[in-house]
């Protein structure tokens, strides 16, 4: 098996940031911010895997509110395995010794401005 961190960086790094996925996500319209949608989650996973952010409460909330239902993948123009990226990123949080931290919340503006 590939190293999950490397796999996330490779796949999530391809996200075009188009946002087509968001229209199909059941949690996106109910959540308070874009971290409740696939585009936000993929980019949070990418930054988490790169070590650019820590597993703050906002990161945990974003990744663990995903249903892994794959509705988002139906509209991804580059067929990203979005649910797999998110599940792998959960591994970075759940696995002991890997990035687990109770450090302060990430700056959301920083996350969503970074890749635009």
């Amino acid at each position, binding site marked *: 098996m590939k190293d999950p961190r490397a796999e996330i960086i490779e796949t999530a790094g391809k996200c075009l940031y188009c946002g087509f996925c968001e229209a199909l996500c*059941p949690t996106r319209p109910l959540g308070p911010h874009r971290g409740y949608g696939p585009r936000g989650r993929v980019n949070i996973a990418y930054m988490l895997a790169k070590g650019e952010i820590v597993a703050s409460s906002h990161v945990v*909330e974003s990744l*663990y509110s995903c249903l892994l239902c*794959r509705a988002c993948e139906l509209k991804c123009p580059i067929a990203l395995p979005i649910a797999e990226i998110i599940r792998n990123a*959960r591994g970075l949080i*759940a696995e002991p010794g890997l990035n*687990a931290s109770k450090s302060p919340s990430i700056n959301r503006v920083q996350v969503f401005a970074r890749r635009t």
Partner: protein
Amino acid sequence: MPPSLPALIGCRYLLDVRSILRILADNIKRTGLPVPGDPGLLTSWSTGLDLPEKGDVILYTGGLYQLLPYIEEFAEYLEKLEGGKAGGLLLKAAGKLRRLASLSKIVVRPSRERLEYSRQVLVSIVELLKSAGVEIAYPRSVDSYSGVLLYDMGLDTVFKEHARKVAEALESVGAKTIVTIDPHTTHVLRKVFPRYVEGFAPTVKSYIEVLAENIDNLQFKQGDAGRVVIHDPCFYARYEDIIDEPRLLLGKAGYTVVEPRRSGRMTYCCGGPIESIAPRLSRRIAETRARELDEAGGEIIATLCPICYSNLRRAYRGLGLERDIQDLSILLYRRLGP
């Protein structure tokens, strides 16, 4: 007036995820089950069914149907902890949430009615397989929880160890085909286990696929059985491409299949996968789907997954609506006969 702090950070939904992960891992290590319960509950449904222990085709339930009544109770307990008005809920619950770490020791007691429904589903599946001419064996000592929740939650180390034990047990009985009964277990055994357990590559089929392959052997009663709205579970429709099979079976059993606005590959999630992590968010998604299924205008709602059944049932109850939700196996079993 400036917005309040909760309004600025948004209404947050999640319980203490790390505590829940610890509870889950702790439960699995202690009993092999994700929620507090006796491992014997996985196999007790088969008492008196006279199923052989050995055979080329074996039934592996993966435990979700049997565990769902317990998971429901556990989720309701967690939801009570989450209770409180939106906005300040996490602050209010913070004191209680600290106690989450000891929750793995609590005892959950589902209602007799829910346990009986799960038993009926399992018995119906066995009877349907027999009627389709499938010689199905059930090695009780091998049946276990598949560990799918560990995988979904990212608990990879615990999952890998659990999967290895499950795979070893399954391989020890030397079956050619493993028949699963729910979409999550089907997916994890078919697509995930081979990546985590070296050399594990048996043929894994959902009972729905097996019935569809043997549809000519199935004898159903004649006549119109009513209009059934079908709710496709995400894991069958989008992960495993099992879409046509339930429709074929319902059609042969005399039901008129009614498609909701979003169905097949475009299906909408029931919200179930996050019911233990974010119960309120899960419920809001379930209510959206429940209304959508309602608008389709059938007499019965058919689910193909215990998680969908449980979450939609709770959603209708929350909406104050009484609807006839039935597992596919129950609907098919009712129609067996000349």
